[in-house]
C-alpha cells in the first residue's frame, strides 16, 4: 500500500523592512531583526530606500497604507507585511518587533 505523507506546509508571511543606510534608528533595529530571524521562523526582506530607487518606489507605492500609521509620512525603519497591510514604524524594543512579526502569521 502506498502511503503518502502529507506535511502541512507552514505558512510564513513575507515581511519587509524598509530602512535607510544612514538612519541611526534602522541601524539600532538591525540586531533585533537578526535575532528575530534566528530565534523565530521569520524572514525579513530588507530594502534600503535612499540609495536604491526601486526600493524607494516600492515603499512609495505603499504610502496610502504606511503613512497614516507613521505620522503621515514615509519614515524609516518601517516594518510592513503586504499580506495583512500591517505596519510597525520606528525604533522599538525587541519584544514589540517580535510580537508584531508573529502576529502576521
Amino acid at each position: 500500500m502506498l502511503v503518502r505523507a502529507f506535511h502541512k506546509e507552514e505558512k510564513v508571511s513575507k515581511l519587509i523592512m524598509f530602512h535607510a543606510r544612514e538612519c541611526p534608528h534602522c541601524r539600532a533595529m538591525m540586531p533585533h531583526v537578526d535575532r528575530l530571524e534566528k530565534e523565530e521562523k521569520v524572514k525579513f526582506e530588507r530594502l534600503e530606500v535612499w540609495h536604491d530607487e526601486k526600493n524607494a518606489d516600492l515603499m512609495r507605492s505603499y504610502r496610502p497604507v504606511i503613512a497614516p500609521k507613521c505620522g503621515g509620512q514615509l519614515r524609516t525603519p518601517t516594518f510592513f507585511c503586504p499580506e495583512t497591510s500591517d505596519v510597525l514604524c520606528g525604533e522599538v524594543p525587541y519584544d514589540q518587533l517580535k510580537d508584531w512579526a508573529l502576529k502576521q502569521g
Partner: protein
Amino acid sequence: MKKYYRCYVCGDIHFGVKAPEVCPTCLVKNAYVEISSDEAERTSRPTQTTMTRTEFRAAIERFAEKNEFQVNADAAKVETLFDGIFANEQNHGLKYCPCRLRTKDFNEDLKLVCPCNFIIHETYKGKEDGECWCGLFIRRKK
C-alpha cells in the same frame, strides 16, 4: 521699511520688507532672521553655495541655541545623520532627512529638508524627552 534678513541655515542674505518664507538657496522654510546692516555687509561677501559639514554643524548649533532644543550629544549618531544628509544632498539635490523618504512631490518634500519643522511632529510636541524623527535635535533638559 526694508530690512536685512539672513537665513540661519545657509547664510543667504535678503533685503526687503519681509523675510522670504522659503530660502531660495537651501530651501529651508522659515529660516530667516532679521540682522543689522553691519552684519549684512560683513556676511554678504561671495561664498560657496554648498556648505561643509563643519559649516552645517555650526549653523544648526546656532539655530538650536536660541530654542528649547539642542543638537543631540550623541556624536556617533550625529555623524551618521550627517553622512545621510550630505549623501542625500549629493544624490537628490537637497539636505533631506535620512530617516524619511521623499515623495517626489517637490513642495511636499521641502518639509523633509533638515532642519525640518519638527516641533509640530508627534515625536516632539508635548513630550518631555521629545526629539525630531531622526534624533538630530532633542528637547533641552530643564
